[in-house]
């Protein structure tokens, strides 16, 4: 650690966390641990198995008749009792938390079952029959803009929900005069920092007061409170929102719980009792929120020496099926910082927001940063490659100079402080870049693939609540009225025994806020941190809070801890006056230290802190005239620098701006394509460090998230919108085996804009690390076009075809890849001891079909060639009931027939088509040959694609095996079909 702990104060020391005693002994109080009101019911949500479909009907009769069921809530109920959620752009579109007339992404809520317990609710959810008309889906953001693309929201007319263009300085002039124009095209993928604890909501409704009481592991921003109250059609004071004391991680994601507050509020209202819902992992992965995926074309005007004179961004932001608050904030959070750590005076930006058949997006650690810095830092490397310069020199030449702070960027941010060149040079020396270069030389001499990457980023923190209005035109903003600022609040209270409590609305999700606040207040009042009690969860009915409250945009250290310091200073100033009276001295002579107030000039003249502190309770008459009370002080603090976007669309989108310079050495295995990190160095300027170990924890945690984003994690969708990453075995989160320990360095330049000089630190590596690793991989394998995640198979593919040129990025191919729905083809044959005619009859006979369709109970003949069946099928541990439809086509009696089948059920759907050919082999036997193509979607496709191919083969095989048996037994074990079946199902056949 590079920080020397100060001796005279608690802030700056890595004191043990006060949170840990409870968390280590099983006494955490997470949402699912808290007691509920007697009679609280459990909810389960039926979700869409389709990426895009019209809902023809929902039949809940059977579900309502199920054991323990109290209510089934559908889109109709929600439309009746609430109003559409506010959409952050001017657009003719509604945004409901549940499907109304159609479903637009896999996992979209369709119905909510409220029952005595969760098991019963899930049983009943399976009994809801939804009739869907499947519509063509679009998942690729560029394809969504096509004139022939299926339109998600007909009222919008297209999938483009917002477009804005911006120009700062003279980008056209700069490009016209540039020595070089160098560009990158990037498709940044969808991923999510997925906390280990999923969403949870407990909602109650009081009809007498028309008031909702909602407990949710929400993380803020509390501007969302207004969205929820408006949707529920109640004033803000009838929407009490509380958060649990502990939350199992969030990293932005738990902002996205809010639509479920609305749904559970409605469910509680309809059920007449409180309702609790805890999300399961499949629901979380498929349908909570993710970061946006974004397609960016970024071009730079570059001088011969690598200096950039202008940047031109063309960004297509994919917000999924609905534009949910606060989106399109991901696209605008970085608006003031589009030039990163560089002094670039001319910028043009074209921003388009599109909707696709994927889960709506929301907050995610790094929020907008990775999507900007990945193109920008890949571009820096590209410039170096193209101009034959050292990438480090290209960075150096463009950095904002040390004497330029506070620095106003072209797009309007006011960078508070920093010395980027000094931090960079220190990192190069202390992190040993020279040694890595040597290693690269040696490795390459031996024919190994070793590369070095780097990234310089500015990490914004404390969001301006007005930045999102940059999406509106200046005229629209004028009409709507200005939005700006970021109210932070802290309350300090003193009880009659003189002990101190702190209350903030920061809603920590594991970051240790309570510990740091105890340190800050202990310093101000001369107490031990352990003497201070801190509450950081929120009850909107009782606490001081505002729209900026919550845990996001790395605002805790700069804003919340700062507000606590201001509150502590304010109460101390009053206590000094009180103590001065008690000690018979001047307020300026009073020192608080060691739990006492004493005279500076005569330390023996002292009194206990408690005695001074409690005087306002017991003897208010003794307070000096200048002091009203010392019982409670609440401070609201909003930095004046956070003004609304101006008429030229310049916006100071964040208050603080940390600096990060990262570099790493990566070796790529030439055979497997696996990227191994040899060393990762990350230099941070996060201003004043309040708790070194927690800062390191934030850096490491962010680094691990970013490593996952760089190498493993992607929310994969098929072309039909099917979701393919529904378990933690499909969505791969790094384990201890994958995460190396980064070398963490610090270069502190305190922020002049925050009370403690601190800046945010939690998100920076999510911005810098993906680009840094990709630059190293690009350097190692010598390719220009790289989209994340850099999985071994992707890198191996690139190694196999290194000659591919930059002109046509592989994006199109990637999205259009086979799949969509998981497709599966196969063929087989069996020989049976029956004539062709006999076999033919069986295929058209419901009784035979009943006997041979795997898991079938009840086949109904609709027409000669059309049958329906109820079947129960299991895929691995997932067993479900399905409705099957089987139709026969192209009948060529008794030679050949085509079978087309579809199955639909709560767990998903499948469809397939097979051609069966019957041929006479003589001696009364018939050879049945078949070919098929099948596809599977919905929940089963999300939870283990790997299981499916085998399972589907087994089911199809079982059908033919049963047919063979039915026809008089197969002809010995040598037949291809049976031999293969045995192999597939482990010889149990």
């Amino acid at each position, binding site marked *: 650690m590079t920080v020397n702990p100060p001796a005279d104060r608690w802030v700056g020391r890595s004191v043990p966390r006060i949170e840990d005693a409870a968390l*280590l002994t099983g006494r955490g109080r997470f949402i699912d641990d808290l007691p509920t009101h007697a009679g609280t019911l459990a909810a389960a949500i039926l979700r869409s198995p389709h990426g895009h479909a019209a809902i023809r009907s929902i039949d809940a009769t059977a579900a309502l008749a199920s054991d323990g069921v109290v209510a089934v809530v559908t889109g109709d109920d929600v439309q009746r009792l609430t109003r559409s959620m506010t959409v952050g752009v001017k657009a003719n579109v509604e945004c409901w938390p549940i499907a109304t007339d159609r479903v637009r992404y896999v996992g979209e809520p369709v119905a909510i079952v409220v029952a005595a317990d969760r098991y019963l609710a899930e049983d009943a959810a399976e009994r809801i029959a939804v009739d869907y008309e499947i519509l063509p889906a679009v998942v690729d953001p560029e394809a969504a803009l096509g004139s022939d693309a299926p339109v998600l929201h007909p009222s919008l007319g297209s999938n483009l929900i917002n477009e804005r263009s911006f120009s700062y300085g003279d980008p056209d002039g700069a490009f016209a005069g540039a020595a070089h124009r160098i560009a990158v095209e990037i498709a940044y993928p969808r991923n999510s920092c997925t906390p280990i*604890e999923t969403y949870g909501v407990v909602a109650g409704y009081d009809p007498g007061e028309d008031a909702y009481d909602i407990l949710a592991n929400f993380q803020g921003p509390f501007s969302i409170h207004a969205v929820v109250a408006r949707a529920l059609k109640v004033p803000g004071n009838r929407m009490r929102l509380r958060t649990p004391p502990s939350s199992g991680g969030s990293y932005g994601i738990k902002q996205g719980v809010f639509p479920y507050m609305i749904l559970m509020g409605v469910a509680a209202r309809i059920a007449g009792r409180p309702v609790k819902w805890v999300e399961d992992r499949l629901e979380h992965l498929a349908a909570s929120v993710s970061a946006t995926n974004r397609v960016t074309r970024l071009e730079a005007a570059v001088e011969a020496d690598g200096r950039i004179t202008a940047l031109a961004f063309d960004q297509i932001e994919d917000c999924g099926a609905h534009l949910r608050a606060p989106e399109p904030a991901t696209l605008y959070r970085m608006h003031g910082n589009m030039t990163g750590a560089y002094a670039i005076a001319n910028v043009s930006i074209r921003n388009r927001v599109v909707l696709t058949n994927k889960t709506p997006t929301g907050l995610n650690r790094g929020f907008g940063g990775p999507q900007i810095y990945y193109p920008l830092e890949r571009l820096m490397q590209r410039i170096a490659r193209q101009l034959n310069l050292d990438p480090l020199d290209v960075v150096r030449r463009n950095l904002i100079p040390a004497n330029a702070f506070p620095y106003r960027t072209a797009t309007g941010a006011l960078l508070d402080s920093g010395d980027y060149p000094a931090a960079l040079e220190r990192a190069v020396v202390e992190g040993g870049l020279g040694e890595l270069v040597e290693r690269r030389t040696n490795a390459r001499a031996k024919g190994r693939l070793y590369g070095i990457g780097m990234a310089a980023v500015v990490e914004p923190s404390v969001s301006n609540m007005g930045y999102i209005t940059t999406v509106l035109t200046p005229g629209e903003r004028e009409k709507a009225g200005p939005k700006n600022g970021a109210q932070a609040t802290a309350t300090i209270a003193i009880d009659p025994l003189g002990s101190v409590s702190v209350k903030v609305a920061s809603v920590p999700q594991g970051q240790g806020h309570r510990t740091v606040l105890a340190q800050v207040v202990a310093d101000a009042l001369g107490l031990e941190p352990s003497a201070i009690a801190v509450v950081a969860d929120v009850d909107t009915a009782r606490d001081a809070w505002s729209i900026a409250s919550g845990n996001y945009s790395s605002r805790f250290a700069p804003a919340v801890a700062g507000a606590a310091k201001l509150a502590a200073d304010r109460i101390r100033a009053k206590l000094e006056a009180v103590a001065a009276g008690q000690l018979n001295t001047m307020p300026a002579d009073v020192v608080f230290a060691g739990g006492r107030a004493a005279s500076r000039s005569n330390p023996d003249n002292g009194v206990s802190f408690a005695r001074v502190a409690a005087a306002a309770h017991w003897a208010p008459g003794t307070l000096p005239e200048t002091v009203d009370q010392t019982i409670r002080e609440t401070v609201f603090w909003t930095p004046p620098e956070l003004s609304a976007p101006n008429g030229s669309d310049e916006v100071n989108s964040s208050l603080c701006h940390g600096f990060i310079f990262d570099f790493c050495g990566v070796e790529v295995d030439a055979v497997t394509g696996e990227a191994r990190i040899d060393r990762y160095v990350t230099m941070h300027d996060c201003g004043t460090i309040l708790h070194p170990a927690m800062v390191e924890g934030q850096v490491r945690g962010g680094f691990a998230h970013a490593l996952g984003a760089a190498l493993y994690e992607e929310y994969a969708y098929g072309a039909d919108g099917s979701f393919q990453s529904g378990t933690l075995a499909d969505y791969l989160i790094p384990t201890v085996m994958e995460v190396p320990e980064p070398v963490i360095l610090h270069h502190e330049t305190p922020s002049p804009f925050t009370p403690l000089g601190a800046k945010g630190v939690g998100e920076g590596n999510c911005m810098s690390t993906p680009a840094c690793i990709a630059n190293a991989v690009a350097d190692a394998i010598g390719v220009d076009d790289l989209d994340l995640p850099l999985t071994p198979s992707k890198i191996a593919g690139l190694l196999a075809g290194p000659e591919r040129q930059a002109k046509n990025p592989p994006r199109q191919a990637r999205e259009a890849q086979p799949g969509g729905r998981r497709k599966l083809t196969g063929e087989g044959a069996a020989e049976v001891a029956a004539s062709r005619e006999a076999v033919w009859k069986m295929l058209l006979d419901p009784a035979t079909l009943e006997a041979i369709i795997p898991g079938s109970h009840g086949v109904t003949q609709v027409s000669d060639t059309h049958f329906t069946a109820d079947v129960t099928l299991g895929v691995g541990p997932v067993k479900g009931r399905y409705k099957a439809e089987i139709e026969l086509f192209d009948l060529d009696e008794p030679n050949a027939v085509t079978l087309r089948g579809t199955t639909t059920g709560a767990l998903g759907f499948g469809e397939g088509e097979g051609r069966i050919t019957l041929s006479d082999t003589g001696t009364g036997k018939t050879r049945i040959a078949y070919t098929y193509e099948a596809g599977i979607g919905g929940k089963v496709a999300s939870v283990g694609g790997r299981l499916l191919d085998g399972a589907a083969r087994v089911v199809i095989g079982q059908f033919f095996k049963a047919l063979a048996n039915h026809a008089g037994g197969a002809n010995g074990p040598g037949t291809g079909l049976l031999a293969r079946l045995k192999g597939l199902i482990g010889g149990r056949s």
Partner: protein
Amino acid sequence: MPKLNRDTRTDVTFTLNGKKVTARSEPRLLLTDLLRHELGATGTHVGCEHGVCGACTVRIDGEPARACLTLAAQAEGADIQTVEGLEPEPGGMSPLQAAFREHFALQCGFCTAGILISLKALFDRKPGASEQEIREQLSGHLCRCTGYTPIVRAALAAQAQMREEEPRNA
């Protein structure tokens, strides 16, 4: 184990952290739900319910097991230890817990109970486990907050401490 059928609820009796407990359970009830919601032992957490994250890890007859993949009925007669059973006395901490606090090996603490139980099982079985073995044991757990390094550090520090205290086991 008695033969169970869908509609009967039966008593399950087992030892939980040294105390005999009995709870009513229907056959499909998961051990996680029994522990958390029937017995109020909420220290064991559920992160995935499909056996990957490790948050639900408890010890069954000494061996670490995924409580989310265990039916409550399977606990009949077993000796189960959860995070609530690690504390030597109320307000105290075992060396492992203390090391986690000292090394900042947790942030949100949601994954922590499973990790503590897993490491405790490892060290009971093999007090001298190597760092590689410790990492292998930890590879069955997902932590989204810490980046793992401090967890490995805490495990190594706790191991050293425990071996100092009980050299016989070394």
